[in-house]
């Protein structure tokens, strides 16, 4: 009889403890969700994600990226407290499940956040590239921002899969081949620009001529208007020349000699 009573006492104590724990968990989760929302807002996440397709999709569902992320962290905490409560109740589940849940839970959370960040960054990359190409009205140009976007998302998916311990070797090799092809392609396509930039570096450091000087490079003769890394712009009375810097380097510059 005594044993049963003691058991009941213990059990009720435990029930009180557990319900207290659950309530505490819910409150902490709420506070953390609100805090993280405020922190995310303070570091300027809403401005950073404005205009991305994820934010737009969230907006259609009546929420926003920031709310979503703070909700995820809230559910994570609530899930954790429920786990803890089950543990206290000594529900009969095997050790294995416990290990799996404690190991996989954070991994899933991390990969979710990384995935969301990847999508946002991809969108951001698309917007940035598209903005820098804004002036060009060419239908083919629309492809470049898309490529930038999906490259970023691909990398984020790789990281996510790595988090979840999925074998990603083949995908990494694919990424390597892709990166290599970009390097090879741009080395060929931009060789002239690279040459000009190298020459431009010298011109900017040594300054053999400056803005306002009258110079002659090959046939072109005029007053220097601008010296950039890629080109030197000179202007005569009738014409304005844009000289690639490697040409300045190859053909040499004639400047006026000051004989005072």
């Amino acid at each position: 009889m005594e044993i049963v009573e003691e058991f009941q006492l213990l059990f009720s104590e435990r029930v009180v403890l557990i319900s207290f724990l659950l309530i505490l968990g819910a409150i902490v989760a709420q506070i953390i969700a609100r805090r993280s929302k405020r922190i995310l807002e303070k570091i300027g996440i809403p401005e950073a994600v404005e205009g991305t397709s994820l934010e737009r999709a969230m907006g259609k569902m009546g929420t926003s990226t920031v709310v979503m992320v703070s909700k995820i962290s809230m559910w994570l905490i609530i899930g954790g407290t429920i786990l803890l409560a089950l543990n206290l109740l000594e529900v009969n589940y095997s050790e294995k499940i416990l290990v799996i849940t404690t190991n996989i839970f954070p991994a899933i959370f991390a990969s979710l956040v990384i995935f969301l960040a990847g999508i946002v960054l991809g969108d951001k990359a698309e917007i940035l590239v598209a903005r820098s190409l804004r002036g060009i009205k060419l239908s083919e140009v629309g492809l470049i921002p898309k490529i930038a976007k999906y490259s970023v998302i691909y990398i984020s998916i790789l990281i996510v899969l790595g988090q979840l311990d999925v074998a990603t070797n083949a995908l990494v090799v694919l990424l390597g081949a892709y990166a290599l092809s970009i390097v090879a392609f741009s080395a060929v396509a931009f060789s002239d620009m690279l040459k000009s930039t190298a020459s431009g570096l010298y011109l900017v450091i040594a300054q053999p001529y400056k803005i306002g000087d009258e110079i002659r490079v090959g046939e072109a003769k005029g007053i220097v208007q601008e010296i950039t890394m890629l080109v030197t712009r000179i202007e005569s009375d009738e014409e304005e020349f844009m000289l690639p810097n490697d040409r300045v380097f190859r053909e040499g510059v004639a400047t006026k000699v000051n004989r005072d």
Partner: protein
Amino acid sequence: MGEILEMVDSFVSEGRSIVLFYPSVAEYEKYAENADRNLAVVGSENVWGAEKFIELPLEFENIKEKIRFGLEGAIKNGIVFDGDEIVCIAKLFSNELDSIMKMRVEESQLNSGVYSFFLNSKSDASVIKDVLELVIELGKKGQNGEPVGALFTVGDAGKVMNKSCPLSYNPFEKSHVHVGDSIVNVMLKEFSRLDGAFVISDEGKIVSAYRYLEASSEGLNIPKGLGTRHMAGAAITKDTSAVSIVLSESDGLVRCFKSGELILELDPEAY
């Protein structure tokens, strides 16, 4: 915000052009969604991907100026025409679109030249904007509270250099400072001590300080009562394709010149 949109529908008959002034992306999308009419946006950068976009590099505080210069750009871009009846939606009190104005476009009243001062000059609009902001900042701060004067020429630096001579050693020789750089704000105080003109290149490089501008002031038509600094600033824009931005020491106003004419007059305190 939603109510304003409904108001527009009840207020505006079909087929009128609507001009939005500095909307947020969400606001623009709401209008773009259910408007099959002529919709144009005025802003500093086309973040909306709007088809009809009018670039106004400086966000004017004064709503009247904002609308005037925005509409001037709209006329120049062929988006609205003289005599059109249009609807402007802008922010007046709050930080979102809150007011509707219906007006008739009068080209003769909108010909200040401010739009072409920024967009059709030799140098980039962003460079002119940077310099203008710098001068406004200089006008606000002054030197230890004392008003200072300054003269900046922007663009066509090669010609300006050949039409001027040095007053002293050029502190910017062999330097690579651009007006948009953050270091410029630190150097601001030093700037106000230098006499003569600052010469800025097309792409914003500070080419020289201490320049004495030697352009001829013959046939110049600027308001009487402005000093020698303004005269020199206006004259150089007549002889070259540069524009000049002048901060007056006596009345503290910022004035912009192009092709020898006074284009814009701003009070730095209003920004």
